[in-house]
């Protein structure tokens, strides 16, 4: 078996006959990836070039397809959260929150106020972490190595918070059906408060490096323009769509968790080019920090997991040892042939992940494993938009556009 050859035809611009093909002899085909520093892990682009100008591009994916959706049919709802970590691996907490949001919607569970609040805080920290790496990668690909190192250092601070919370730097698998595995401790709250105080200064430093930097602006302004209609028709969501003028953000349009209680704005731009996407992500980081700053001072007290009567989250040890309902509930949830009841129905639950609308379409069949766990990844549709963004630009713009779309190969291929 050899590497898959270039596709037989480049779709819309493929010359239909031999004469037209001969007249296009001057075009040459360049294979970009799947191993290339600028492809964020395993993507492949087959470019048709006229000198340095890109005439057409054919993206190829599948170089990281691991069968996540088939695994979803064999693992329970609480086991599958470990697999969702490995999808958008630069913000795993956001994927955990999204998966359990979808599962709790299928089961019809309402979370406690405390759980909603702390999941919101962690989801926003994950959003900051994702945007830091995404913009850092754009900086790295266009040559700004210092910006990348600053971004990575801030991500280490966020990793430290996650490690204090649940023991793992990333791939945390922190949420459970009906609650979370580890509640906030005073040390975690203190670390988040410190982060809230020190992050704006670093963000200002980073902006000073790049936002009005002539080289960066020249490389990204006007490059890879996506119009509003193209964005909607192509299914783009998240910062990519918001940078083109689509004012859709699930945190405001279909509020979930505790977003209704906080005061923040959604960030949009109208230009739709790489520079606009960069600015939208920088602005979103500030808004996320605003949410975290408000939320961390107002965490409701009380239980974090849902009560025993819901029969989904494990009861506390006091309840197990002192009440009969606690004992029964613990037994039912721990035994492998019991688990909790799931309705025979289908539902779709979506959250606003840092990359866009991350949703899970779940089909329940009564057992504690999903019959079908379909993940709707935002990166697939963004990657499919790539050819229309890059036509007419040069080879060096390919790198800038690919970075600004923030395509994560694991989410793309699943």
């Amino acid at each position, binding site marked *: *078996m050899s590497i898959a050859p270039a596709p037989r035809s480049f779709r819309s611009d493929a010359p239909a006959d031999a004469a037209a093909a001969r007249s296009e002899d001057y075009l040459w085909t360049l294979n970009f990836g799947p191993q290339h520093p600028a492809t964020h892990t395993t993507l492949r682009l087959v470019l048709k070039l006229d000198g340095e100008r890109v005439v057409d591009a054919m993206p190829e994916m599948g170089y990281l397809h691991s069968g996540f959706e088939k695994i979803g049919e064999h693992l329970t709802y609480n086991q599958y959260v470990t697999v969702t970590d490995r999808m958008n691996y630069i913000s795993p907490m956001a994927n955990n929150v999204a998966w359990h949001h979808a599962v709790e919607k*299928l089961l019809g569970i*309402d979370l406690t106020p405390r759980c909603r609040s702390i999941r919101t805080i962690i989801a926003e920290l994950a959003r900051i972490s994702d945007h830091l790496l995404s913009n850092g990668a754009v900086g790295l690909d266009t040559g700004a190595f210092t910006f990348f190192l600053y971004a990575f250092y801030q991500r280490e601070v966020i990793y430290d918070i996650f490690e204090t919370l649940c023991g793992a730097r990333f791939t945390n698998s922190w949420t459970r059906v009906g609650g979370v595995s580890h509640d906030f401790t005073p040390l975690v709250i203190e670390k988040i408060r410190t982060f809230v105080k020190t992050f704006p200064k670093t963000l200002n430093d980073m902006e000073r490096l790049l936002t009005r930097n002539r080289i960066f602006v020249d490389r990204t302004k006007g490059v890879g323009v996506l119009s509003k209609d193209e964005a909607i028709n192509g299914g783009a969501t998240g910062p990519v769509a918001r940078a083109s003028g689509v004012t859709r953000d699930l945190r405001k349009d279909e509020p979930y968790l505790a977003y209704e209680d906080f005061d923040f704005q959604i960030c949009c731009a109208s230009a739709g080019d790489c520079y606009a996407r960069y600015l939208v992500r920088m602005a979103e980081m500030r808004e996320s920090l605003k949410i975290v700053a408000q939320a961390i001072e107002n965490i409701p007290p009380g239980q974090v997991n849902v009560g025993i009567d819901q029969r989904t989250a494990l009861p506390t040890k006091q309840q197990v040892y002192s009440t009969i309902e606690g004992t029964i509930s613990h037994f039912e949830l721990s035994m492998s042939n019991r688990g909790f009841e799931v309705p025979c129905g289908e539902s779709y639950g979506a959250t606003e992940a840092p990359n866009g609308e991350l949703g899970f*379409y779940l089909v329940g069949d009564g057992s504690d494993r999903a019959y079908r766990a379909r993940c*709707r990844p935002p990166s697939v549709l963004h990657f499919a938009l790539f050819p229309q963004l890059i036509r007419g630009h040069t080879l060096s713009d390919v790198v800038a556009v690919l970075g600004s779309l923030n395509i994560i190969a694991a989410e793309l291929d699943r």
Partner: protein
Amino acid sequence: MPHDPPAIDDVLATVTERFGALESTVFRGQTSLIVPEPQSFEVLSHLKEQGFDLLVDVSCVDYLEYRGAKQRYGLVYLLASTTTNQRITVRVFVDDPEPRVRSVEPLWRAADWLEREVWDLFGIHFAGHPDLRRLVMPEEFTAHPLRKDYPLQGRGERHNFPVITRDHS
């Protein structure tokens, strides 16, 4: 409190007016329209005219091992409206031996790759799709992995490669 999605009774009324009474279910606040396969394209383009401009997802469920299933494959189209924030699910059932559906790529460009993936993983043919070939599996792969009769560990394709040792490299 989970947010209740905006009501879509007006949209459903226009659908009933044009296509007759179609089966629909509501579960967890989400309306799901079940459309017979010959009418799927018309219903979806009607819904697009009614303002559902965002195609969120196209996916498929293989009901081979589901209790009470009548047809094997259920295609799921998730639509949303960016202006009114309404959502609707459209389900189309097709069956073996030759599952075929008309492609909605002319309506939404987003369907291009989503339908390619359904073809790749389930084997459902989309008539009218400009470039229906495999998306995530290698081109030489022959089976459709997400079908229920395909085993999780595969049938040996994953290790069918030459071995490179120190002497050869």
